[in-house]
């Protein structure tokens, strides 16, 4: 039977991982669901958040909390800038969008590699120290990170259902032509959506680098995982991507604890493939 200690570790560590993945994948699926864009640069935005935050700390001497907030916003602007500058005109051509965003992600990876080196950076955590649950030491940042991630997702949900812009975005996602017909500025809505989803990605990146570490190669790894989680949850469904994040996060944590660290990623991906073969449109798939 599984010991109490193992159970606590499993629950807390699994939740942190899942929470961070949920931040990045919900943003990814939001863009697809609303703007019908497959933004492969999303992983790049995720990591850019971490590196921008670190630069703020190193360059301007800001404290971790302020720089987290500022880099989050900065990434939001970068994301919406990418949309306005590059994607807006070609958004009908799926393949073109994919190529542009993928190339962009790789440019971000290479630039970070050149500017900061390959060894990754450690972000000083907002909260340092350890909290003890019985015999089990839990880094405070993990619990804090988990709380922040969940809070952010909750706020996202409120935004989409309770605010006017949120409801307009939902309308636009369901039927773009009808939305234009009733006078909604669809383009503005898309820009807002890109901003929010990039914001979430940036936040996820900063949190990730405080709990673990950020390195340039995460640009592609985060993309693959976000992509996989989103597809498992169903392209376009925010609820689906959150649920899928938790499934994947916990699978990975369980595998690390009982099978061995080296198998965790492979396992997660294999399970996703298996799920897709059984149910090709994902758990909560949005059908075209």
């Amino acid at each position, binding site marked *: 039977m599984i010991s109490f200690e193992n159970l606590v570790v499993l629950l807390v560590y699994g939740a942190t991982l899942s929470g961070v993945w949920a931040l990045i994948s919900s943003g990814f699926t939001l863009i697809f669901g609303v703007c019908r864009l497959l933004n492969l640069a999303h992983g790049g935005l995720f990591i850019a958040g971490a590196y921008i935050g670190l630069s703020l700390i190193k360059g301007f001497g800001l404290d971790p909390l302020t720089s987290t907030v500022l880099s989050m916003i900065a990434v939001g602007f970068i994301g919406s800038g990418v949309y306005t500058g590059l994607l807006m005109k070609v958004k009908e051509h799926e393949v073109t969008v994919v190529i542009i965003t993928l190339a962009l992600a790789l440019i971000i990876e290479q630039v970070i*590699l050149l500017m900061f080196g*390959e060894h*990754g950076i450690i972000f000083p955590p907002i909260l340092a120290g350890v909290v003890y649950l019985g015999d089990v030491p839990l880094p405070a940042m993990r619990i804090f990170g988990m709380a922040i991630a969940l809070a952010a997702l909750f706020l996202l949900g409120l935004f989409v259902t309770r605010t006017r812009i949120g409801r307009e975005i939902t309308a636009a996602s369901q039927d773009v032509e009808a939305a234009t017909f009733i006078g909604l500025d669809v383009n503005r809505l898309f820009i807002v959506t890109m901003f929010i989803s990039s914001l979430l990605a940036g936040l996820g990146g900063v949190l990730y680098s405080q709990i673990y570490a950020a*390195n340039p*190669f995460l640009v592609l790894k985060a993309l693959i995982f976000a992509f996989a989680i989103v597809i498992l949850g169903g392209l376009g469904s925010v609820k689906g991507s959150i649920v899928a994040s938790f499934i994947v996060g916990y699978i990975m944590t369980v595998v690390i604890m009982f099978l061995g*660290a*080296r198998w965790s990623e492979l396992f997660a991906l294999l399970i996703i493939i298996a799920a897709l073969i059984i149910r090709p449109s994902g758990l909560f798939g949005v059908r075209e």
Partner: protein
Amino acid sequence: MTGKEKTNVDRRSFIKYAATAGIAAVVAGAAGYFSAPTRTETITRTIPAGEVTRTVTVGGQTVTQTQTVTVITTPTRPPPKPPAGKTEVRIGVLAPLADRQGKVQENAARLAIEEINAKGGILGLPVKLVVADDKLSADTAVSEFRRLVTAEKVDVMIGGYSSGVMTATMEPMAELKTIFLADASSPAHARKVGANYDKYKYWFRITQNNGITFALDGIEQIDYLAANGVKIDKLYVIRDEHIWVDEWEPLFTDLLKRKNIQVVKSVKIPRGYTEYEPLLIEANRLGAQAVFNMLAISGTGDVLAKQWSTLKLPLLLMGHDLAAIDLGFWQSTGGACEYEIFMADGGVVQTAPPTPMCKSFIENYTKKYGYPPEAHQGYGAYDAVYLYKKVVEEAAAAGESNPFDSDTLVKYLERYTLGNAIELTRKVAFYPKGAWGADGTRWDHDLVWGDEYVKNWVAQWQGGKQVVLAPAWLKNADLKLPPWLK
């Protein structure tokens, strides 16, 4: 090779060596006859001739080595002249220039070459540096190697870093018969030389020891701790899943068993892995006194240090972590690496340079570039340039018709072997042809391991600096234990 083929080869090489000695003696004699009475340097070395069988202890393991040694005496002669038509000496550096381990090789070689040119070059010829980036890719490395040798006409190659890339690069090296003074720690490279000496003999590992020695260095850490009051009987191992650890983990575990030390668990992690906390918690639960890491490819040693110092469990952190060797490790972990014990690859910790030349190299490098050598590959590259100059000069002094010829220089490089190290920034010597290592495989042309040669010193991070704890003749600090250890 079968035993019979091996004896035939040995016999053939003995005859080859004896013939060479004879011809050298004749040439030397003739040169002496025609020598002009100017300033002369006499280099005489007497080595017992014939077949020599030696029993040597390498890190507690007894190794029998058989060498065929020849007598080469160099009497007084005029200052050696370079071969006709040669106007400069070209030294090639092939390394991953985007990484500090590669860039430092370019910088160090450049510094060495400037110093040498200021003193008249090699055999009076100016030396030119040719640099190429291997971009950590086997294909790029191979095509750049070929370009440097065939188009840029370099005389010798220095460089490398990734073991996989090195394996591929040994092919054009063999084909183009170019001396390669190399980095990378994989035992497979020395084994290639052992398996096909004539093809791969141009390779000499100069920057750091054969990876198998990490097992021996690990035992040194354990012994050092025991001698300083820290008793360890249970170890938890966190290791890269990759092949480089497979080479030495069995030897390490075996040596541990003989000391009654148990490895309670050995966890393999992939590249980029970051979930160390559950592992540390498990290590503590299983009763280990220390976590021994074997990391290089994972790239996340800084995360491990950070999480270890956050959790503050009663565990020592020790072993081999490539990240911990980096001078910027303190900065990148925010000081969390304090008290981590590690192995200083390449035999240099900057606070305790092992030779006077090392000390001045560090100073001159810092003066020229504004910061000290950013990775240990710098010492290897610097040594490689000076070693090349030395053997070329020796070959010319011995009257070799072409002192830049690779086949000729191989023999001169091989003279720097056990009992005859050359003191550069470290004391460099190579295992001879036919040498067997501590793991029972061939270590031909590998860097000699030992207290009097090059070794991964037992080091620790203290007060933001790297210090050497052992061996006694080099140490500049005593062991400091983390305050949270009960």
